[in-house]
């Protein structure tokens, strides 16, 4: 008998939602000692399924059918009090967002101890230390006395794991536990989960959207789309020989085509950064001197006509700050930012305006980067109008651009919230292109998108780059994406560019230890997605 046996689970969405059921007729089993990955894009219903297992569904969602067998009982038929006793003791759970998943007002030790206390376990104090030790956190004593805000994201996720494991549950549910973490941390957490799982023989139900993670950790995989499981099977099977078109499309969308080695760029330099330096001041009370926190230190870069330079690094490495320095959103305190023959850093605001037309930017968050109160046409026409184009011609131009980014013409009349993430990113690109720039700065343009959409946007950018002869500075944290898009990469760590060179060379023979550790942390780095003849059909946008 399976450890966990979900059968025909159907959960209704409240009336008026885009579809009738959050999950429909979902069945899967989890065996002791295995890791089952449920993969799917956002809205596929994967988190709802786990919510049902834990009986932690939002009140608006209602289970209409199915059973969840666990230790001989149907979880869906348990009384709330009985279910509570299982939660935390027999079934543990960890969540996606470690920054908010811990109570900010309770010490870490207390929070771990609480699990023991509410389930009537004894010997809490020593046990808490043991648990902190078990998740490989340094100095258990001081960690236990800390409040969550003093811990990093990775440390907090370890605390979450310690809590989930405190009573040695039979099942661990991990809902995108590494999505919010940097790659190196992600790798450590994945390693930890796998290690504990194999040591204790738990069954782990692991929710993720990332096939790399699947490749890294899964024994078996279930792929969900629109609330249904479309394909399930052993990990190697699904990853390397996907059967369902949706799975095929998803896997094809994983950035994998390492870029062919371009000819070394020879064009004249478009942008040249020399010794750029930017710091932030933190604190600065009466009694605590202000602390200078360097964000970018002595950055040197050259960007030549027609090339795409990738700027990679983990969060806080200063890559976005550097990009923002180029467009004057952030004012660096030292260095030269030479655009052709002009040092942009020395320009007054009003002298900047002509350069606005030539340097444009695409932003990360498709939800935040479009003014929610303006129609799409106006958003795209905003730039040309700011530079003196008449409204009518600017709107005509907007229609052309919409076509260019493959959106239908009716889009101009609608508001941003009526579009999906991928569509919005297209609008953002159209806006940037409206001014016919020479240099495009793309700040993590695909990191907020589902993998299939991501592939489309990347393809679009590449297409546009070639058609319009753009020079591009491409900022990303995702090495796979960088590998696919960029001719050259620069790796940043703590404000310093530690290594730069042609992408293929850097990836093949990293010089700097940090670059090496980044590359080692790519989830599923040993897995090469099958190069299938995959159309972009099937992937949703």
């Amino acid at each position: 008998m399976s450890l966990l046996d979900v059968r025909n689970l159907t959960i209704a969405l409240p009336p008026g939602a885009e579809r009738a059921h959050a999950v429909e007729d979902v069945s899967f089993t989890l065996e002791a000692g295995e890791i089952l990955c449920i993969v799917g894009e956002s809205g596929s219903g994967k988190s709802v399924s786990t919510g049902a297992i834990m009986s932690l569904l939002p009140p608006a969602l209602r289970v209409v059918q199915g059973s969840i067998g666990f230790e001989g009982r149907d979880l869906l038929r348990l009384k709330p009090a009985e279910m509570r006793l299982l939660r935390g003791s027999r079934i543990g759970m960890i969540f996606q967002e470690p920054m908010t998943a811990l109570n900010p007002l309770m010490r870490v030790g207390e929070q771990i101890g609480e699990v023991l206390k509410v389930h009537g376990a004894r010997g809490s104090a020593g046990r808490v230390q043991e648990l902190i030790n078990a998740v490989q956190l340094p100095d258990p004593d001081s960690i236990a006395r800390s409040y969550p805000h003093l811990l990093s994201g990775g440390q907090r996720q370890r605390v979450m794991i310690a809590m989930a494991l405190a009573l040695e549950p039979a099942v661990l549910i991990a809902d995108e536990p590494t999505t919010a973490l940097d790659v190196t941390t992600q790798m450590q957490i994945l390693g930890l989960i796998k290690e504990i799982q194999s040591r204790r023989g738990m069954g782990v139900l692991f929710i993720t959207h990332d096939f790399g993670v699947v490749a890294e950790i899964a024994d078996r995989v279930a792929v969900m789309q629109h609330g249904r499981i479309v394909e399930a099977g052993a990990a190697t099977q699904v990853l390397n020989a996907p059967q369902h078109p949706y799975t095929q499309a998803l896997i094809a969308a994983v950035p994998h085509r390492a870029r062919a080695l371009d000819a070394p760029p020879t064009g004249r330099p478009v942008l040249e950064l020399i010794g750029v330096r930017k710091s932030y001041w933190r604190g600065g009370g009466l009694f605590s001197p202000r602390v200078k926190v360097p964000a970018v230190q002595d950055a040197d870069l050259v960007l030549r006509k027609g090339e795409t330079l990738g700027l990679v690094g983990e969060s806080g490495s200063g890559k976005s700050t550097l990009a923002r320095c180029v467009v004057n959103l952030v004012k660096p305190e030292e260095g030269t930012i030479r655009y052709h023959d002009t040092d942009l850093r020395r320009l007054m605001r009003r002298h900047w305006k002509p350069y606005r037309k030539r340097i444009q930017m695409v932003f990360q968050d498709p939800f935040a980067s479009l003014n929610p109160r303006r129609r799409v046409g106006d958003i795209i026409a905003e730039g040309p109008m700011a530079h003196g184009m008449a409204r009518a011609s600017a709107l005509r131009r907007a229609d052309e651009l919409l076509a260019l980014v493959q959106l239908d013409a009716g889009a101009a009349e609608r508001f941003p919230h009526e579009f999906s993430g991928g569509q919005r990113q297209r609008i953002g690109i159209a806006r940037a292109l409206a001014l016919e720039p020479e240099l495009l700065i793309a700040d993590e343009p695909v990191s907020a998108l589902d993998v299939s959409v991501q592939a489309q946007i990347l393809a679009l950018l590449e297409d546009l780059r070639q058609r319009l002869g753009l020079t591009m500075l491409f900022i990303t944290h995702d090495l796979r994406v960088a590998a696919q898009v960029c001719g050259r990469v620069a790796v940043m760590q703590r404000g310093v560019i530690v290594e730069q060179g042609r992408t293929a060379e850097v990836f093949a023979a990293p010089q700097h230890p940090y670059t090496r550790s980044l590359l080692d942390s790519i989830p599923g780095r040993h897995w090469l997605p099958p190069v299938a003849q995959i159309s972009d059909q099937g992937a949703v946008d």
Partner: protein
Amino acid sequence: MGGARFAGFLVQRVIKMVVMVFAIIVANFLLVHAAPGDPASVIAGEAGAADPQFLAQLRAQFGLDQPLSTQLWLYVSHVAQGDLGVSYRQQRPVLGLILERLSATLLLTGTAFILAVLGGVTLGALAARRVGRTSDSLITVLALALYATPIFWVGLMLVLVFSVWLDWLPSFGMNTVGADLTGGAAVLDTARYLLLPALTLGLFYMAVYARLTRAAMLEVASQDFVRTARAKGVPEGGVQRRHVLRNALLPVITVAGIQAGQLVGGSILVETVFAWPGIGRLAFDALLARDYQILLGVFLATSVLVLVFNLVTDLLYAWIDPRVEMT
């Protein structure tokens, strides 16, 4: 938080407070001197007759013949020495007048505040726990109604019901004069006088806190760490108490700190209705009588009170919320 850092935080806040107090002194002084009335003419007027000599005499006596800047400088330097000046009309040091009245106001507002916070948080928490049910609607409607009713109106209604119709409680004053009560009897006596005004003042703010607590609890209830607590198997009561309420209290404390100050100012209406001998009423009388010195003093006193409340709130917040940076 380390002791030294905490001390630094405290000193820093106190310095900020002093700067603020100074700004308030200057501003109040200028504001009140913008007034068209002149205390000398008021006194002369109310004495039933006046002549220029008498007026000049009064003005010289109060320093009103000095240039404004000199008057301000004198006032500020006196305040720095703890001297709030002498009331033109009462012929007494302002500090003494305020201190005599301060305890009454503090008693009234303090009681009202405690009443409001305890009642408000309890009702708000209750409503949040039963969100969508009848008791929630009842509490919400009650809070909304109290929130929408003029405070003096509530006072009048309470007087009508409890003093006039039922004759249970006295409607004015602070204690039974001449009864010469001591010990427990005196406390009980004052408590009877205190009940209605404190209730009047407290009900409005109770509504504020109830609404706030309810909203904050619902806000917190949707946060991730509450889901974590449930996933840990914490019983519902524990989830609400240890996780939801504790976090929901943070915004309540912030607002409570601001409101506590406003409470002191707002008590002017209640002190009028119930003839409560506090500084709110003192300020209003002083204003009508153009008694600049008292007015400045009361303003300063209430502002300092507000600042002290804010400081206490900050400290309390810092104590409860470990995330507050001690810088």
